[in-house]
C-alpha cells in the first residue's frame, strides 16, 4: 500500500469517527488533507486540488462558517471516497464522482476519453453556480451544506428544475397511505438489494426492486409529487437496464441504488412533514446529487465503475502466492489507461502467466454463490393497535371462560352434555389464546438486515474488510423484543467493527485472514431467545480494562478478580477503553445503555473473550415481554404476584426461627446465612384479615447479590400472567411493577422486588439493612 493511500485511509477513518465539535479531530483531518495535497503526484493534479479544497471546507467547519456541519462532513466523505477510488482502485477522475459542491473545476476535462463524452452533461451543473452568481466560490460552499436539509427559501444552485412538493390540493389521506406504502417498498427494495450483494444475478430480486420503484413512480405521478416520481423514474431506468442484463447491480451501481433508496426515504419524510405542518417542501437540494449520479451513469453506463466484485483480482493473485503486493502496486501505477484491467497489465509486464490470471478470474466468479430463494408467504397487514386490542380481548375471553367454566354453581348442576361443551369451549379458548400470542411474533430478519446495512457502510468508510454472517434470521420473537433489541445489537456490532476487528494489515501480521468476521446469531434455547454477536478480532484487553478500573477506583488494587468480572466492568456507565470517542461506536448508547436495555427486557448479557481470537456477546431474553412467570401470594385479603425470576426458594415460617436485632429488625438463620425479613403486610399497611390465618410463609428473593425474605400469609401457586402497565399515575412509585388480571377478573399487583426492598430499607432504618444496601451500591459510588 503506498503512502498516499495510507494517508487517505487515515483521513477517511478519522472523518467517519469525527464529532463535529471535536476541534483537535478536525485539526488532524485538516493536517492530513494538506499532507495529501502536498504528496499527491497524480499528473492531472485532481487529488491535489480535491484535497486542498476539502481542507478549506474543514477549515470552514472549524471557524463555524457553515450552517450545517454534518452535511459538509458527508460531502467530504464523498470527496475522500472519490480520491480513494482514484488512488486505490485506479479509476479515472470522472469515475470518482466527486461531489459537485466541492467546486472542482476541471474534473471532467482531464478524464479519460470515456469521460470526455459526459463532459458536456456535467459541466453546466458544476458551473451553474458561477454563471448565475457574483462570487461563485462562496455561493457554492454555502449552498453545499444545505443540500441535505430541506431549504425552503434559496433557489437550487445545481439543479435547473425546481422540485417543490406542494400539498395544497392533495388528498391528505391518500397521501398518508402513499407515504406508508412507499416506505414499505423502500424497505423491501433494500432487503432485495442486500440479497443481491451475495447473488447479483438473482432476477426475482431485481424485478422486485424494479416493481417497487415503478409502483412509487406511478402513485407519485398521480399525486403530483414530482421529485419522488423523477427519482423513482431514474432509478427505474437503471434497474430496467439491470433487468435486461446490460448492467450488473454490484459495487458502485448497488451503492447508487442504496443512495436512491435513502434519498427516497428522506423525500418521504419531507413529504410527511409538509403534510402534517402544511408547508411547502423543497426537495431540489435533496435529490440533486443522486439524480446527477444516476443521470451521469445512464448517459454512459460503461464509463462508470463496473463495480468492485467480491474480491479483487489482485487480492486473489496474492492469495494464490503468484504475485506480491508491491508487484501489484507497481502494476497499478503503470497501467496505461485507467480502464485497463489489472490482469492485462500484469500479463503485459510478464509478472504473471496469463493462465494464472484466468484462474483468478474464474475463482472471482465462483465467489458468487447461488442462493435459493425463499418461498414467499401470503401476508396481510394489520394495524398494530388492532392487534393489541385483539390480544387484549382474547385475554378477557380467557378470563370470562374460566369464570364460567369454574363456577361451582354451574358445575354442580350441569348435565354431562353441558359439561362436555364447557370443556370444548375451554379448549378452543386456549387455542385462540395461543394464536393470539403467536400473532405478536415477528422474525428478526428486518432487524438483522439493518445491521448488515450498517456493516456494509462501515466497511466502506473504515477501510476494514468485514464479512458479516447472520444465522437464524427466521427466528421469531415478540414484536416488542424485535423493536427493542435493534439498538443494543447495532451498538454491539458497531463496537465489534470499530474496536474488535483489526485493520487488514494488522490481521495479516497476526496470521489471520485479512477479512474480519462478525457473526450474529439468533436462536431459541430452553424457553429463551438468544442473540450472539461474535467477532474474530483482537478480543477484549483484560489488562487495559483492569488498569482503567483501578484508575477509576472501581476495584481494589490487590484483589484478584475473574475474567468474567473484568469483562462485566465495561458495562458500567462511563467506562470506555476506547482512546477516542468515535462516530462508529462510543457515541450514542454506550455499553451501559445496552445493559440497561437488556435489563429492561428482563434479559441477561454475558461476555466472553479470548485475546487475539475474538469476543462473544451473548444476550439471553425471555420469549415474550408481555407475560411474566410469577408466584401468586396472599397477604391478608390482598393478592400479590412475585416474579419467579427473583425467587430463590420459599419456606414455611416457624416463630422459633426468628430472632430480632435491637428489638425491631427480624431475621432468620437460613442454613447459616442471615436473612432479613420484610413483613409485606406491615410494609404495605394492609388491614388485618379477621378470618385470621397468621403469616406463615417466607419467600426468599434475590436482588443482585442481596437476599431477603418476604413474609406472606399463603402461597397460592405459580401463575403465568400478562403484565399490564399501571399507567402514568403510578409512574413514580417503584415497588409495584405492574398489574395482572387474575382469574376472578380483578387486578393483582406484581411486586418489583428491588423496589420493595429499598422501600423497606427507607421505612425501617435497621443497621443491617443499611450495610446490605451499601453492599449493593458500590458500582454507583464512584460514578456519582
Amino acid at each position, binding site marked *: 500500500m503506498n503512502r498516499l493511500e495510507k494517508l487517505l485511509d487515515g483521513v477517511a477513518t478519522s472523518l467517519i469517527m469525527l464529532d463535529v465539535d471535536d476541534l483537535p479531530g478536525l485539526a488532524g483531518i485538516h493536517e492530513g488533507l494538506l499532507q495529501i495535497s502536498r504528496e499527491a503526484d497524480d499528473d492531472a493534479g485532481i487529488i491535489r486540488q480535491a484535497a486542498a479544497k476539502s481542507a478549506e471546507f474543514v477549515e470552514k467547519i472549524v471557524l463555524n462558517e457553515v450552517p450545517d456541519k454534518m452535511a459538509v462532513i458527508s460531502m467530504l466523505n464523498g470527496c475522500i471516497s472519490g480520491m480513494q477510488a482514484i488512488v486505490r482502485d485506479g479509476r479515472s477522475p470522472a469515475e470518482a464522482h466527486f461531489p459537485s459542491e466541492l467546486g472542482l473545476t476541471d474534473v471532467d476535462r482531464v478524464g479519460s476519453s470515456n469521460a470526455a463524452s459526459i463532459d458536456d452533461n456535467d459541466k453546466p451543473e458544476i458551473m451553474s453556480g458561477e454563471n448565475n452568481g457574483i462570487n461563485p466560490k462562496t455561493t457554492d460552499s454555502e449552498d453545499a451544506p444545505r443540500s441535505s436539509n430541506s431549504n425552503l427559501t434559496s433557489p437550487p444552485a445545481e439543479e435547473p428544475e425546481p422540485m417543490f412538493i406542494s400539498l395544497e390540493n392533495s388528498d391528505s389521506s391518500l397521501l398518508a397511505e402513499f407515504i406508508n406504502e412507499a416506505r414499505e417498498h423502500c424497505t423491501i427494495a433494500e432487503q432485495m438489494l442486500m440479497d443481491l450483494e451475495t447473488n447479483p444475478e438473482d432476477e426475482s430480486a431485481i424485478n422486485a426492486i424494479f416493481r417497487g420503484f415503478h409502483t412509487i413512480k406511478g402513485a407519485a405521478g398521480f399525486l403530483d409529487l414530482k421529485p419522488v416520481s423523477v427519482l423513482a423514474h431514474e432509478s427505474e431506468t437503471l434497474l430496467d437496464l439491470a433487468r435486461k442484463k446490460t448492467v450488473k447491480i454490484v459495487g458502485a451501481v448497488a451503492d447508487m441504488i442504496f443512495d436512491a433508496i435513502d434519498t427516497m426515504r428522506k423525500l418521504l419524510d419531507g413529504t410527511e412533514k409538509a403534510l402534517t405542518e402544511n408547508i411547502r417542501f423543497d426537495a431540489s437540494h435533496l435529490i440533486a446529487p443522486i439524480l446527477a449520479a444516476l443521470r451521469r451513469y445512464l448517459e454512459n453506463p460503461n464509463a462508470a465503475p463496473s463495480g468492485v466484485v467480491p474480491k479483487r483480482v489482485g487480492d486473489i493473485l496474492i492469495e494464490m502466492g503468484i504475485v506480491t503486493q508491491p508487484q501489484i502496486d507497481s502494476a497499478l501505477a503503470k497501467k496505461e489507461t485507467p480502464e485497463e484491467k489489472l490482469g492485462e497489465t500484469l500479463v503485459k509486464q510478464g509478472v504473471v502467466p496469463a493462465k494464472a490470471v484466468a484462474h483468478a478470474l474464474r475463482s472471482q466468479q465462483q465467489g458468487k454463490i447461488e442462493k435459493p430463494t425463499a418461498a414467499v408467504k401470503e401476508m396481510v397487514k394489520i394495524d398494530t393497535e388492532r392487534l393489541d386490542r385483539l390480544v*387484549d*380481548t382474547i385475554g378477557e375471553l380467557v378470563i370470562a371462560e374460566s369464570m364460567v367454566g369454574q363456577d361451582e354453581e354451574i358445575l354442580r348442576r350441569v348435565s354431562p352434555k353441558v359439561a362436555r361443551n364447557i370443556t370444548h369451549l375451554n379448549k378452543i379458548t386456549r387455542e385462540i389464546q395461543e394464536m393470539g400470542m403467536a400473532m405478536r411474533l415477528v422474525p428478526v430478519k428486518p432487524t438483522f438486515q439493518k445491521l448488515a446495512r450498517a456493516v456494509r457502510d462501515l466497511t466502506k468508510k473504515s477501510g476494514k474488510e468485514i464479512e458479516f454472517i447472520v444465522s437464524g434470521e427466521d427466528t421469531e420473537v415478540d414484536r416488542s423484543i424485535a423493536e427493542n433489541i435493534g439498538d443494543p445489537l447495532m451498538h454491539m456490532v458497531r463496537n465489534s467493527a470499530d474496536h474488535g476487528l483489526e485493520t487488514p494489515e494488522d490481521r495479516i501480521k497476526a496470521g489471520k485472514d485479512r477479512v474480519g468476521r462478525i457473526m450474529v446469531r439468533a436462536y431459541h434455547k430452553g424457553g429463551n431467545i438468544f442473540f450472539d454477536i461474535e467477532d474474530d478480532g483482537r478480543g477484549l484487553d483484560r489488562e487495559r480494562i483492569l488498569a482503567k478500573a483501578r484508575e477509576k477506583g472501581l476495584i481494589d488494587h490487590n484483589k484478584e478478580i475473574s475474567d468474567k468480572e473484568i469483562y462485566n466492568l465495561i458495562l458500567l456507565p462511563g467506562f470506555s477503553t476506547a482512546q477516542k470517542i468515535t462516530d462508529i461506536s462510543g457515541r450514542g448508547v454506550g455499553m451501559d445503555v445496552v445493559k440497561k436495555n437488556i435489563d429492561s427486557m428482563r434479559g441477561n448479557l454475558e461476555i466472553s473473550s479470548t485475546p487475539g481470537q475474538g469476543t462473544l456477546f451473548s444476550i439471553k431474553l425471555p420469549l415474550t415481554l408481555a407475560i411474566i412467570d410469577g408466584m401468586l401470594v396472599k397477604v391478608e385479603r390482598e393478592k400479590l404476584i412475585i416474579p419467579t425470576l427473583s425467587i430463590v426458594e420459599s419456606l414455611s415460617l416457624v416463630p422459633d426461627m426468628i430472632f430480632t436485632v435491637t428489638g425491631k429488625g427480624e431475621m432468620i438463620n437460613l442454613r447459616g446465612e442471615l436473612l432479613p425479613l420484610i413483613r409485606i403486610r406491615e410494609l404495605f399497611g394492609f388491614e388485618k384479615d379477621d378470618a385470621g390465618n397468621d403469616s406463615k410463609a417466607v419467600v426468599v428473593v434475590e436482588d443482585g447479590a442481596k437476599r431477603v425474605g418476604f413474609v406472606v400469609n399463603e402461597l397460592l401457586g405459580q401463575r403465568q400472567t400478562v403484565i399490564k402497565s399501571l399507567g402514568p399515575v403510578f409512574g413514580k*412509585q417503584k415497588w409495584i411493577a405492574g398489574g395482572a388480571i387474575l382469574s376472578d377478573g380483578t387486578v393483582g399487583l406484581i411486586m418489583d422486588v428491588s423496589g420493595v426492598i429499598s422501600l423497606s430499607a427507607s421505612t425501617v432504618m435497621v443497621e443491617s439493612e443499611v450495610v446490605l444496601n451499601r453492599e449493593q451500591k458500590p458500582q454507583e459510588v464512584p460514578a456519582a
Partner: protein
Amino acid sequence: MNESRKDSVVQSKTGIADHRAGKYLTFRLANEEYGLEILKVREIIGLMDITRVPKTPEFIRGVINLRGKVIPVVELRLKFSMEAKQDTDETCIIVVDIAGETGSVLMGILVDAVSEVLDIQPEEIEDPPSFGAGFDTRFILGIGKVKNTVKLLLDIDRVLTGVEVSGLEGYAETPEINEASALTI
C-alpha cells in the same frame, strides 16, 4: 319554577357564545352537584372490586380491570378533601379520558351518584367566584345555574393531572433519601 328560569335568562348577557356551554354529565358528591363535559366521559360503571395500590395517597382508591385495561380510580371526595363515606348502591365509577402529558389516559372517578345529562346554555354559566387565598378554583370551569340549582362544572383535566404530579411525589422521594444516607455512612 318556569318563571324563575325566565328571569335568569333575561338577566344574563345574551348573544355571546360561551365555549363552556354544552352537554354535561352531572353527579353528586355529598350534597353538591358537579358537572363533567360529556365529551370527556367514556362510560359509567357500577362499583366493582378495586385493588388498592399500597403506599399511594389516600384519594387513589386503587386500580380496576376495565376489559383488560388496568386503570386507576380516584375517590373524588378524598381528592377534594371531603369526608369519606361508605360505598352505597348508588356509588359509581365514571371513566374519563384525561389529556395527560404523554397522550390521553383513562381514569376512573368514584362519585356518590350519577344524576343526569344536562344541556347548559351559555347564559346559564358564570365564572367561578373568588374565595380568596387558600382556595384554588382553577379546576372549576364555571358555575352552571340550572333550575335554581347550582352545578360546579369541573375541568377534569386540571383535577386529575395534579394526581400524577403532586400525589405521589412524597413517596417517590423516600428511596432517594435512603440512597443518600447509605452513601454518607
